[in-house]
C-alpha cells in the first residue's frame, strides 16, 4: 500500500508554516477557496438550481483550487460509479469515461473511498500494484490522485476526485478543501432529492386535495339536490377531470330491458352524444355490460387492438382511443356504468381506477336517488292530476244533478204551495215524498262537495267569535219539530256552557245539526237527546247523548267513515252516509277531535272537542297551557309587520307547526318562557325592545338558551346574528323552503347536541323506498337497517333494539298495523318510537287504529326528506313532545 492518508501530511505542514511566502500564498488560496465555497453555497441556496449546476461549479472550483488537471464527480450506481460531471477531460477521455463505469472495489481509488467512507489519495498510480484501471490511466495519463466521498444519509452516494498528470502528491490542505467540496456536492444532491421528494409529496397532496374536494363536491351535489341531471353531470365532469381523461359518459342500467342507456356525457360532441344515446348496449352482449357484471373497473388501453362492440366501435370511430368502465353497483344490483375515455391510447393507472371507483359508489347512490325522485315526482303529478280530475268531475256532476233537481224540487214546491189549485191529501202526500227525495239527493250532493273540498284542502274556515248558547239553540230549533214528531225529548242546560265559541259558526252549526239530527233519528219514541257543552282545560267539549239503539262495538271505529251507518242503517234510509265523515273532518279542520261512546240498546254519546286556543283573543294568557291540544309543536314568531307575520304563520302551519305570533320583543320573551317552543322566528326591527335585545335575552337565560332562534330580517347582519347565538339568519324576503329549512335545521341541531343514538329499522316492501330512506338518513349519521317484510322486521327489531322504527302500512305479509300492534304488545318494544311512512291516505279508522301508538305519519307522496330526517332525529333524541298524535 503506497497510498497516503491525510494524517501523514502533518509533518510537512509544520515546515511550510514558517515560510512567509507560503503563508501569503496560503492566504490567497484560502481567499480563492472561500470565494469558490460561496459560489457553490449561493448556487445551493437557489431553489431552482439543479444538481448538475452545483456539480459543475464544484468540479470547476476543485480543479482550480487543488491545482489539478482534472476534477470529476462520479455517482454510485449499483456496483459501479458513473461520471456525472467533469472539468479538464479531453474529448476522447470524456467519451471513454462516459461509456465505462468504474467498478466499486479496492482496485480503484473510488472503490477504496466508498468502502472506507473517507478521503484517500494515491501518490502515483503507476507505483500502486493494486490499482487496476490501466485503460483509464493510459487514456487520462494521470499519476497522483485524490478523492473524497459524497455522503448522504450515511451512505456514500458519489466521489469527488481530482488528478494530476505528474507525480505530485496532494497535501493535507488540499485534502481538506476537496473534502469540503465533496460535502457541498453531497449537500446539493441531498437538497435536490429532498426537493424533488417534497415536490412529489406536495403534488401527491395537491392531487389528494383535488380528489377530496371533488368527492366532497359530488357528495354535496348528491345530497343537496335531487335534480338528477345536475348530480350526474357533476359526477362525470369531475371523474373525467380528475383522471386526466378527455371525456366520459354515465350510463344508466334498465333492469327490465337489460340495456344500458347513456344518461349524461362530458367532453363529448353533440353528434357523438346523440349517437351514444341510441346505441344498444345490452348487459350480456357488450363490453360495458360484462364490465358491470364483473363489478370491478375494466379498461381498454387501446381501442384499435381489440374487437369492438357497436358501442366501442362508435367511440373508436369518433376518435376515442382508450377507456375504462367503472361499474355502478348497489349491494344487490347493477345501476349503471361510468365510462371515462381518452383520445390517446394508454392504460389507466391503479390510482385513477381507485379514484373512479370511489366516484362510482357516489354515482350509484345519486343515480338511485335520481330514479326514486323521478318516480316520486311522477306519482306526485299523477296524484295531482287525479285530484284535479276528481274536483272537475265533482263540480260538473254537481251541476248536472242540480239542473234536474231544480225542476223536481221546484215543481213539487209549486204544487205544495197550491199555486195552481188544490191537491187532495194523497196527492199532497206523494208530492211531499217527491220533494223529500229531491232534497235528500241535494243534501247528498252538498255533502259530497263539502267533503271533496275538505279532502282537497280547499275548505277555508271563517273563524269568528259567536255566543255559544245562541248557536246551540238555533240548531235545536231546527230539529225540535222532527223530535216532537218522533216523541223524542231534547234537553240542553245552558248554565255550564261557555259564553262564546270561536270557530266557523256556520260549519259548527252544520256539525251540531248533523250530530243532533242523527241522535233524534236513531232514538225511539219516548227517548231523549241531551246536549251538553262545557269548557275543560284547553278545550271546549260538546256531547250529544241519546237513548237510542246504540252502535255495535265492531262498527264504532268505522262509523266516521263514508257511507257507514253501522247496524243503524237497517232502521232508516235517511241521511247521506257522509254526514259523520264530513262532521269529523270539519271538527278536525278546527284542530279538534270527535269520538263515540256507545252501548247497544242503551244509547250513544257523540263527543266533539274544539281547541279553546282558537278562540282566545289574548294568546299571552293562554300560554300557561304549553301543550297544544292538537299536538302540534309551537314556534313563537316575533314580528310586528302583520303581513310578514301572517306569511310566516302560513308556512309554519303548513309544515304542521303551531305558530304563536306576537308583535313585541317583551311579549315574545313572555311567550317563550311560557311555551318553551320548538323554535323562535325573530324579526330584528321591532317596536320597543329590538330583536338583538330579545336574542341576547334568550341566550342569557340558562333555561331558554337552548331554544333555536331563526332571525328573519331585512338587515343583512348575519355576522352579528350568529355572534349573538342565532341558529340561522335569513334576509327578507324569505321563501317557504328557506324558512322551513332553517327551522328544521335548527331543531335538528339542537337535538343532535343531545348525542342521542340514531339507528333506525325501516320496513317497506318497496326496495326503492328503502333506498331513499337509506340515502337520506345515512349521510346524516344514522345507522339504517332495512327489512322488506313485517315478519322479518319484528325479529330484526327485537335483536337490534333500534332507537326508532319506520314502517310502511301496506305490505303483503304482516302489514304495518300488525307491526305496530305487535311492537306495542311486547314489553321489550312497547316504548320504541314508531313512525309511519306510507303512500296510503289514512282513513279515519286507520287513524284511530294508530292513535297514541305511533309518533307521526309521513306521507310518501309529499315527503320532504330533510323534514323527515329532522323529525326522526328529534324523536330518536326523545325530543318529541311525548304525545303520539296522528295528524289529519
Amino acid at each position, binding site marked *: 500500500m503506497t497510498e497516503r492518508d491525510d494524517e501523514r501530511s502533518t509533518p510537512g505542514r509544520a515546515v511550510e508554516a514558517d515560510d512567509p511566502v507560503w503563508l501569503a500564498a496560503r492566504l490567497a488560496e484560502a481567499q480563492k477557496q472561500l470565494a469558490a465555497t460561496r459560489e457553490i453555497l449561493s448556487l445551493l441556496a437557489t431553489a431552482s438550481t439543479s444538481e448538475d449546476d452545483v456539480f459543475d461549479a464544484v468540479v470547476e472550483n476543485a480543479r482550480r483550487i487543488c491545482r489539478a488537471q482534472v476534477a470529476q464527480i462520479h455517482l454510485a450506481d449499483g456496483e459501479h460509479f458513473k461520471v456525472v460531471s467533469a472539468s479538464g477531460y479531453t474529448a476522447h477521455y470524456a467519451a471513454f469515461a462516459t461509456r465505462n463505469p468504474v467498478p466499486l472495489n479496492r482496485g480503484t481509488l473510488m472503490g477504496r473511498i466508498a468502502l472506507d467512507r473517507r478521503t484517500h489519495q494515491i501518490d502515483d498510480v503507476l507505483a500502486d500494484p493494486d490499482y487496476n484501471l490501466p485503460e483509464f490511466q493510459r487514456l487520462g495519463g494521470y499519476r497522483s490522485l485524490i478523492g473524497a466521498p459524497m455522503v448522504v444519509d450515511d451512505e456514500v452516494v458519489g466521489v469527488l476526485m481530482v488528478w494530476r498528470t505528474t507525480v505530485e502528491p496532494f497535501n493535507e490542505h488540499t485534502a481538506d478543501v476537496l473534502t469540503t467540496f465533496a460535502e457541498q456536492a453531497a449537500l446539493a444532491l441531498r437538497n435536490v432529492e429532498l426537493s424533488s421528494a417534497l415536490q412529489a409529496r406536495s403534488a401527491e397532496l395537491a392531487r389528494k386535495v383535488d380528489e377530496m374536494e371533488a368527492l366532497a363536491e359530488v357528495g354535496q351535489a348528491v345530497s343537496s339536490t335531487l335534480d338528477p341531471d345536475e348530480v350526474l353531470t357533476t359526477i362525470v365532469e369531475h371523474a373525467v377531470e380528475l383522471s386526466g381523461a378527455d371525456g366520459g359518459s354515465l350510463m344508466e342500467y334498465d333492469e327490465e330491458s337489460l340495456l344500458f342507456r347513456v344518461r349524461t356525457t362530458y367532453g363529448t360532441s353533440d353528434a357523438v352524444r346523440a349517437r351514444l344515446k341510441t346505441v344498444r348496449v345490452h348487459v350480456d352482449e357488450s363490453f360495458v355490460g360484462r364490465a358491470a357484471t364483473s363489478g370491478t373497473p375494466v379498461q381498454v388501453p387501446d381501442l384499435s387492438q381489440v374487437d369492438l362492440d357497436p358501442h366501442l366501435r362508435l367511440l373508436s370511430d369518433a376518435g376515442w382511443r382508450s377507456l375504462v368502465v367503472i361499474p355502478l353497483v348497489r349491494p344487490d344490483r347493477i345501476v349503471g356504468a361510468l365510462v371515462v375515455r381518452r383520445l390517446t391510447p394508454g392504460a389507466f393507472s391503479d390510482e385513477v381506477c381507485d379514484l373512479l371507483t370511489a366516484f362510482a359508489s357516489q354515482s350509484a347512490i345519486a343515480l338511485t336517488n335520481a330514479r326514486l325522485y323521478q318516480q316520486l315526482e311522477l306519482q306526485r303529478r299523477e296524484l295531482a292530476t287525479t285530484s284535479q280530475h276528481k274536483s272537475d268531475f265533482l263540480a260538473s256532476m254537481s251541476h248536472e244533478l*242540480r*239542473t234536474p233537481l231544480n*225542476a223536481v224540487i221546484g215543481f213539487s214546491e209549486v204544487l205544495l*204551495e197550491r199555486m195552481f189549485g188544490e191537491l187532495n191529501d194523497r196527492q199532497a202526500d206523494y208530492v211531499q215524498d217527491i220533494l223529500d227525495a229531491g232534497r235528500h239527493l241535494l243534501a247528498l250532493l252538498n255533502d259530497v262537495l263539502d267533503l271533496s273540498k275538505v279532502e282537497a284542502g280547499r275548505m277555508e274556515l271563517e273563524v269568528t267569535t259567536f255566543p255559544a248558547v245562541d248557536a246551540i239553540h238555533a240548531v235545536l230549533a231546527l230539529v225540535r219539530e222532527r223530535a216532537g214528531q218522533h216523541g223524542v225529548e231534547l234537553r240542553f242546560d245552558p248554565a255550564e256552557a261557555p259564553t262564546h265559541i270561536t270557530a266557523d259558526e256556520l260549519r259548527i252549526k252544520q256539525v251540531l245539526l248533523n250530530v243532533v239530527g242523527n241522535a233524534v233519528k236513531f232514538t225511539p219514541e219516548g227517548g231523549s237527546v241531551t246536549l251538553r257543552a262545557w269548557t275543560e282545560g284547553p278545550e271546549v267539549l260538546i256531547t250529544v247523548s241519546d237513548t237510542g239503539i246504540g252502535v255495535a262495538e265492531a262498527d264504532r271505529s268505522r262509523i266516521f267513515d263514508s257511507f257507514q251507518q253501522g247496524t243503524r242503517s237497517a232502521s232508516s234510509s235517511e241521511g247521506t252516509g257522509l254526514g259523520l265523515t264530513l262532521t269529523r273532518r270539519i271538527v278536525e279542520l278546527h284542530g279538534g277531535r270527535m269520538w263515540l261512546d256507545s252501548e247497544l240498546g242503551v244509547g250513544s254519546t257523540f263527543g266533539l272537542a274544539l281547541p279553546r286556543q282558537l278562540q282566545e283573543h289574548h294568546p299571552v294568557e293562554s300560554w300557561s297551557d304549553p301543550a297544544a291540544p292538537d299536538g302540534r309543536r309551537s314556534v313563537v314568531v316575533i314580528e310586528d309587520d302583520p303581513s310578514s307575520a301572517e306569511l310566516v304563520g302560513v308556512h309554519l302551519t303548513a309544515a304542521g307547526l303551531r305558530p304563536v305570533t306576537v308583535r313585541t320583543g317583551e311579549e315574545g320573551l313572555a311567550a317563550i318562557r311560557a311555551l318553551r317552543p320548538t323554535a323562535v322566528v325573530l324579526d330584528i326591527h321591532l317596536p320597543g325592545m329590538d330583536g338583538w335585545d330579545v336574542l341576547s335575552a334568550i341566550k342569557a337565560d340558562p333555561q331558554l338558551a337552548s331554544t333555536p332562534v331563526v332571525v328573519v330580517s331585512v338587515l343583512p347582519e348575519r355576522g352579528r346574528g350568529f355572534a349573538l347565538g342565532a341558529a340561522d339568519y335569513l334576509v327578507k324576503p324569505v321563501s317557504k323552503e328557506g324558512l322551513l329549512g332553517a327551522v328544521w335545521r335548527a331543531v335538528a341541531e339542537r337535538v343532535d347536541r343531545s348525542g342521542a343514538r340514531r339507528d333506525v329499522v325501516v320496513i317497506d316492501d318497496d326496495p326503492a323506498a328503502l333506498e331513499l330512506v337509506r340515502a337520506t338518513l345515512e349521510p346524516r349519521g344514522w345507522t339504517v337497517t332495512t327489512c322488506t317484510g313485517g315478519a322479518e322486521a319484528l325479529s330484526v327489531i327485537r335483536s337490534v333494539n333500534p332507537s326508532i322504527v319506520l314502517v310502511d302500512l301496506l305490505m303483503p305479509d304482516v302489514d304495518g298495523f300488525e307491526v305496530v300492534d305487535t311492537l306495542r304488545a311486547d314489553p321489550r318494544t312497547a316504548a320504541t318510537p314508531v313512525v309511519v311512512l306510507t303512500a296510503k291516505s289514512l282513513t279515519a279508522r286507520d287513524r284511530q287504529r294508530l292513535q297514541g301508538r305511533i309518533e307521526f305519519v309521513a306521507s310518501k307522496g309529499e315527503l320532504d326528506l330533510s323534514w323527515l330526517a329532522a323529525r326522526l332525529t328529534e324523536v330518536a333524541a326523545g325530543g318529541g313532545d311525548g304525545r303520539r298524535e296522528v295528524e289529519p
Partner: protein
Amino acid sequence: MTPLSVLLVEDNPRNLKLARDVLEHAGFAVTAVTTGEEALTAARVGMPDVILMDLQLPGIDGHAALSRLRADPVTAGIPVIALSAFAMQADRERALVSGFDGYLMKPISVRDFPDQVRDHALGGGTRDGAP
C-alpha cells in the same frame, strides 16, 4: 201599477217552465229565451226591468252575454242576475266579480224566488240572494 218585466234566459225547458210559471204566478211579465244571442235582442227590444241569466248556455254563455249587454249603452243599465246550478263558492264569486248583480243558485226556493227577483229588479237587491 204595471207588472215588473223579466227576461228569463234558460236553455233547460223544464227549468225555464218552472221559473216562468212561478214568476208569472207572482205577477211578473216574463219573456223567456233559450240562448244568449236571443237574450241580447230581447233585451234591446223589450227593455226588461231585470234579466235572469243561466250561466251555461249554448252559443255564447252567460258571462259573454253579460259583457255584451254591458257594452251596449241601451242595455247597460239593466240589472242581470245569474241563475246557475254551479254550486261552488268560487263560481258565485266569479259571477259577482264579472258584474252580475246577483247570484241565485239552483235549485231555487219556490217560496222565496219571486221576492229575490223583485229585490234585484228594484235595484235594492241583496247581492247574495242565496237560497
